């Protein structure tokens, strides 16, 4: 209580109350504001866990070496309660009051969009693995870097695969939620479909957080399309699949931007998750070598052992963000944010997440591997070099499963 | 005598019920007109129709020779029609003085725009009805009899030409009734015409110049108080019902 009163006094009279701050002199503090409560807390936790997990791992290996000084990493994390305005204020607080050295990102494109204005304003670099919308990187900001593949290309590999399927789907329905990320996905997908010669029979934007898809599903059924591509949020996708079953809507293929790689999607749907296509820029493969974890498979195993659930690409992307900052600081040889920023821009290293090298606009480009739920497990079916495992195609009618 | 208020064939229906049925009468300049009738006779509805809180289903209401049937309540108030409520409704959170000041700020002719002046006028009205000592109390802390006076003071602060009193004497004891009668008589001396709705027949008889009787929403008598009260139909409607 007295500590609270002190903080109150500190806040009111501008005397920055550093006394209660845990950072020691040789700590390099990374700040982040993440959704720990509120509607997207479900995905927000991947970032919280991945950040802490990676920081601990790096510290176990001795921390980071800047110039000839050894630093331990520390994390200062706030819960933005899924509120964009609060997250903007928390990032400001991280920089100007908590004096963190560098920033990690929040989850979701709309947050990254707003928060990147803060990092730009204070010229402190932010590496974020939660926002993929092309909008974030089209503002010519210099201090924002992203480790998710561009939203516009999420369906790129899927469309490529569709051309090679037998029989190849001729018509699709494209559904997308009306938020920044999903609109970017839809805008990127339309030309891909056109180039592939696939007709878009139904092109519908829907309200984020919609729970009733019966009308849209009935339209899909009536249009009799071969494939359905949905860009949305996990809860919408779950509703979509369950309602598709209850209305006996079974196109030859359906694919979703989110959900499929994550464990709770499969848990929530049980057997009904089968046949769902999705994509992931990351799979826990032993081929992805990493300086701190060995490889991605080892990372996934240790992560699951620690937190009790499987990491997906959000978690891997979050881990890569921490590694990117660590490597950049070592390369820069100083904690000066501007120097670190320049070092981030020049980064090029292999990580558990893939090769980290940012393009001119600050975004990374990773190929999306098409995945599919097969017998309750995620299988990689199509990658840069063509088919990996045989896709289960076409999807049978619901009553024939 | 010229008519201030002319009510012509006014009817008001509620769902399945005729509260006021084809009633016509006039209120003359400087007159005190008493309106009596058993419960549910439509007296309060009549006052609401004249003050504009209810719209008539049919008929016309004219004030100083001009039809006001289509005017909203606040415009009628600005023309000079003031009313009190049977179920007393002061502005409970305001002081007694400010309750009355609202009347002075709005009221007849649009009222006084300066708050200090309005309060002066209000204080004068409180003196007039004998509430000056309660001026700074909250209105909802007043007792029943004082609230009746407050209703009067609020209406008077509007500087009305016509005052509609809805049972300002109900629930008062004899001494208090006499005081109110005295106040109303002095109001009339200011040249204000008054329509008084009352249950207390004795009081209204001594106050009214003329008496009008409503029964089941219809006018059954209108004239000199003594003559009206001895009318057989009135006795049956009014007293007969009482005995029943």
């Amino acid at each position, binding site marked *: 209580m007295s500590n609270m009163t002190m903080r109150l006094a500190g806040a009111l009279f501008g005397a920055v109350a550093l006394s209660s701050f845990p950072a020691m002199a040789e700590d390099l503090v990374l700040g982040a504001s993440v959704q720990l409560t509120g509607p997207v807390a479900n995905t927000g936790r991947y970032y919280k866990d991945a950040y802490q997990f990676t920081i601990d791992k790096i510290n176990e290996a001795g921390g980071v070496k800047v110039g000839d000084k050894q630093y331990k990493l520390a994390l200062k994390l706030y819960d933005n309660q899924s509120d964009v305005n609060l997250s903007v204020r928390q990032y400001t607080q991280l920089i100007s009051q908590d004096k963190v050295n560098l920033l990690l990102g929040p989850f979701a494109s709309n947050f990254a969009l707003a928060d990147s204005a803060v990092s730009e304003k204070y010229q402190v670099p932010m590496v974020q693995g939660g926002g993929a919308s092309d909008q974030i990187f089209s503002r010519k900001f210099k201090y924002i870097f992203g480790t998710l593949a561009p939203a516009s290309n999420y369906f790129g590999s899927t469309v490529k695969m569709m051309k090679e399927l037998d029989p190849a789907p001729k018509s699709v329905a494209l559904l997308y939620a009306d938020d920044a990320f999903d609109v970017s996905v839809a805008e990127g997908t339309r030309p891909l479909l056109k180039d592939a010669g696939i007709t878009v029979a139904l092109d519908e934007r829907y309200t984020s957080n919609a729970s009733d898809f019966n009308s849209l599903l009935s339209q899909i059924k009536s249009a009799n399309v071969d494939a359905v591509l949905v860009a949305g949020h996990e809860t919408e996708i779950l509703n979509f699949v369950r309602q598709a079953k*209850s209305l006996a809507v079974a196109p030859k293929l359906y694919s979703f931007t989110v959900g499929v790689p994550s464990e709770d999607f499969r848990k929530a749907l049980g057997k009904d998750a089968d046949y769902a296509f999705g994509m992931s820029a990351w799979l826990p493969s032993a081929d992805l070598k990493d300086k701190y974890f060995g490889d991605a498979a080892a990372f996934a195993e240790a992560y699951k052992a620690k937190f009790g659930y499987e990491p997906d690409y959000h978690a891997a992307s979050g881990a890569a963000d921490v590694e990117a900052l660590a490597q950049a600081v070592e390369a820069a040889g100083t904690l000066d944010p501007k120097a670190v920023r320049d070092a981030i821009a020049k980064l090029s290293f292999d990580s558990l997440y893939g090769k980290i090298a940012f393009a001119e606009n600050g975004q990374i480009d990773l190929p999306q591997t098409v995945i599919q739920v097969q017998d309750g497990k995620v299988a990689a079916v199509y990658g840069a070099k063509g088919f990996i495992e045989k896709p289960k195609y076409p999807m049978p009618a619901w009553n024939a499963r | 005598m010229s008519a201030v208020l002319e009510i012509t064939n006014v009817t008001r229906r509620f769902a399945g019920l005729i509260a006021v049925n084809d009633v016509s009468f006039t209120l003359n300049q400087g007159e005190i007109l008493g309106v009596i009738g058993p419960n549910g006779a439509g007296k309060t509805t009549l006052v609401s129709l004249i003050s504009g809180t209810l719209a008539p289903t049919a008929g016309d209401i004219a004030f100083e020779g001009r039809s006001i049937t289509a005017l909203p309540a606040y415009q009628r108030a600005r023309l000079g029609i003031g009313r009190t409520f049977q179920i007393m409704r002061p502005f409970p959170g305001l002081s007694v003085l400010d309750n009355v000041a609202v009347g002075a700020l709005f009221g007849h002719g649009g009222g006084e725009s300066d708050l200090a002046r309005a309060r002066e006028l209000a204080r004068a009205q409180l003196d007039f009805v004998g509430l000056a000592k309660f001026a700074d109390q909250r209105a909802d802390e007043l007792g029943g009899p004082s609230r009746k006076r407050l209703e009067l003071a609020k209406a008077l602060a509007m500087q009305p030409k016509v005052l509609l009193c809805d049972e300002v004497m109900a629930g008062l004891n004899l001494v208090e009734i006499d005081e109110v009668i005295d106040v109303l008589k002095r109001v009339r001396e200011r040249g204000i015409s008054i329509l008084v709705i009352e249950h207390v027949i004795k009081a209204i008889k001594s106050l009214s110049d003329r008496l009008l009787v409503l029964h089941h929403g219809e006018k059954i008598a209108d004239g000199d108080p003594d003559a009206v009260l001895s009318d057989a139909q009135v006795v049956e409607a009014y007293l007969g019902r009482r005995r029943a």
Partner: protein
Amino acid sequence: MDLLAQILINGVLLGGLYAVMALGLALVWGVLNIVNLAHGAFIMLGGYLSWHLYTYLGIDPFLGLPITAVVMFCLGYVLQRGVLNLIVRAPMFNTLLITFGLEVVLTYLAQLAFSADFRTINPSYAGSSIALGPVVVPVARLMAFGVAVALTVGMWLFLLHSRLGRAIRATAQNLVAARLYGVEPRHLYAMTFGIGIGLAGAAGGLYGTVSQIDPYIGATLTAKSFAIAIIGGLDNPLGVLVGGLVLGIIESLTVLYVGATFGDVASFGVLVLVLIFRPSGLLGKTA
């Protein structure tokens, strides 16, 4: 034509679910004059309860509904008796604020207790459907619809014919009327709120079989319930059923003919229009 028939069926079935969601809200509002902003949070809790019963005890969600309803009834009773009865006579803002506060508390407690993960109640028949020619009727929704109609009619009979029901209806007119029926007002208030919350709990169980539950679904469900209660009117459960159906059909048709982002414009637009032109609801008595 087949599409239109299918959309109408969807709308009607959705409407049935909507009706149960709003039933308790309308009861509490109409009788206690409490606008319960936490209503959706109670639906959410009911959903979690059903989910636990199904997942850990293997109780079918439809068979588990009475258990959910009774447990939620008790919660509602205690809350009204212990908390809300304290502010029954306070100004209107205050009842709005306190139920808003409750909503926040329940939502955060749910997140602490159940985590932010989505939960679905997915019994084997949940996804199956009956084909009527070209039109498909989802079984779970049909059952939910049946339960909705049964609850609505049951509520209506209860209010009309039981002694407690009559006391509740009398209380809607007049605060102390309960005494005339020999019921202590505090108890009657708590009973009424308990029934309202019990109904919300049942709605949550049904909701879980057709959609998924997370701690944050409450606010949206409260808003929907408002629209339904207002459109249907507060004084009659049958009105609420009509309100639910009207809203379900309007939303489905809007998505078909206007676009999938216009569902909310339609439902809340209708709500505003009903409020302005028929403030006592479509079936309510006009003033």
